[in-house]
């Protein structure tokens, strides 16, 4: 299984191409919010950018918190999202330790599903899909991303 990592964010220019690609290709939206990877500056643009994305916890606390199994553990870390089961309670976002789950105003959650469709749209090669061995590489991946 592969997971999405952002190991070279110091190269980020803040173009949001990754978020826009996720929103466009995965979620069919025009947005920099409804995306599994979201770019933000902290304290202004002079501090550079950070990527907010799922770090592929294994086991994922968001899945444990989900009362309807809409978020279910994914092999290799992270979650599989089954939207039809979601009751929009927001428990997943509250449980995520790194703020990787975005909630729309109606409570719909958006989180990275590690599909990697954003990767080719980063002009500075900040992102990378990495192979993991299910269950035993997540700590290392967390450090690197």
């Amino acid at each position, binding site marked *: 299984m592969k997971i999405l990592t952002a190991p070279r964010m110091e190269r980020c*220019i803040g173009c949001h191409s990754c978020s826009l690609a996720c929103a*466009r290709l995965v979620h069919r939206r*025009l947005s920099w919010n409804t995306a599994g990877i979201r770019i933000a500056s902290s304290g202004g643009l002079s501090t550079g950018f950070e990527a907010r994305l799922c770090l592929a916890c294994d086991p994922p606390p968001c899945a444990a918190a989900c009362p309807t199994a809409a978020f279910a553990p994914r092999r290799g870390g992270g979650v599989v999202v089954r939207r039809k089961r979601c009751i929009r309670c927001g428990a997943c976002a509250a449980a995520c330790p790194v703020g990787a789950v975005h909630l729309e105003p109606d409570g719909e959650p958006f989180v990275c599903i590690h599909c990697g469709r954003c990767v080719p749209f980063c002009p500075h090669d900040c992102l990378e899909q990495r192979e993991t061995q299910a269950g035993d590489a997540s700590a290392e991946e967390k450090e690197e991303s």
Partner: protein
Amino acid sequence: MSDSPFRVLRVDLASGKGELLELEGRSRWAGGSGLAAMLLGRFARLDRPWDDPEQPLVFAIGPLTGLYPLMSKTVCAFVSPRHGQVAESHGGGRSALALRFAGLDALVITGRAARLSCLSLGSRHLALQDVHFLQGLDVQAAGKILRRILPGAGHRSILRIGPAGETLAAIACINVDTYRHFGRLGAGAVMGAKNLKAIAVQGDGSPAIPEGKDYPRRFEEVYRLATATDMMHKYHNLGTAENVAVLNALQALPFRNLQRTHSPEAAAISGEAFAERTLLRNAACAGCPVGCIHIGFVREKFMEPNQYIYRQVSYDHEPIFAVGAMLAVGDPFAALDLMEAADRAGLDVISAGVALAWATEASEKGLLSARETLVPLRFGDARAYARAIGHLARPENDFYRLLASGVERAAAHYGGEEFACLLGQEMAGYATGEVFFVSQALGFRHSHLDSAGYAYDQRHETPQAESACRYLFSEEQSRCLLTSMAACLFARAVYTEERLAACLEAAGFGDIAARLPAIGRRVQAERWRLRLAGGFAPEAVCFPRRFTEVVTARGPIDPALLEKLKTQAAHRIRELAAEAEKENGADTGPKAVDGPPAEG
């Protein structure tokens, strides 16, 4: 989608209330410059002064904003303190996408707030809040506080003014997200006159993308052209700063208040030198993968033995020309210091540099003394210029008050009009020849980006007035089309008319795609109609003698060509305005009013 109305939020600062308007006209005006012209036609009061509270401040985006790469600009339109006529200035940053995701095609601000205020809006909120405590704060200090007190960290755009805007300097800009600007023609003073310190737009909406497979395919085609070909290489590599060495080699780089057009000193402030010595990193406007924003660093020892602070400053060709070449400041770090000083003050760095270049020559010639300038000005003296920039933003005497309202006013009072480098406003960084001089002086925005006269100069050994005139207005029309989208003009090689039509079609704007040349022509003509209605008299434009003393690689300037081209351009402007009067005058508002020619 072509027939969907424009969604325009009009906010009255006096009451603090907004009104959401749905306005027809998308297939006629597209958006951006076209929408701005339509809104100026509806809201501008051309028979009143620029600072009348009812005058609108417009921010408009295009139909493709956010949908395709480099569709990342916002058009700001207003009545300029410079000439009391309609004007446009274009900026990027996050502003365009933030407006798109806030669900708006345009924002129109009218009225005057009772106290210094910040307007905050998004897809689900609108608030006007008192920020009197930000009075007098520079752009960066105000930005830090605004980021803390406003909602929506991250995905928002914060537009703000510095002290120059608050003191109504006609050379004040609006800063966008720290590194971009609505720079020219005094938009910052318009916010100041409205008691508006800042505008924060939160891009918190998430509309659906166009249906069908064609849209993602077109997106990837454009994305590939912008990132995997040489089309945008210049902007990604050295950026526009590349022009410094190129123009110097062509003897077309204005140096020392345009006393010269080339200098060996230019090598030290070339794009190559900036990249090698000062470049920290690149940045991008939201929605643009090119990353043309070049950020350099300066460090300052503030305490012995080794205590430093460092600052990050964005640079481009124009600021390097204005505070480097024009002021004969030959050290890139010193030039960055001056750019930062202008940035913090909220001054248009081009106008500030050119204004100080004039003041320096006027000092040399004895027209000004330290009584006026407060600090003796000498070419190359960056420390003195840094202090002078502070005086421009917070004028303590009549001299700086006049200079901050434009070189033409200071020169009219103190003398030295013959060497005031004015082409509608302080000149941009090209001394390529007659065609450029006319293109800026008679350009709608008085910008080098209006119609690329500099490119014509460089391609023609012996320019002819007729063909140059045709070129300028054809180029202006095609640029009107792009800025009505509102594309970054750096992408003009990517967005050919054919590709633009295909992109529009894929995004559901078939009606616009089918009318592209007509829309470009309509927007071009309507802008001129509005400009003339405010009193612009293109025939009255004069070129200060300095421009006829210029010698480029092509030889001396030909005053006869300059005059002939000006006459033809003025005639063409009148023709276009008459065309618009016939087509649009009846339904978009203001008619011509009597007014004095205001161009110098």
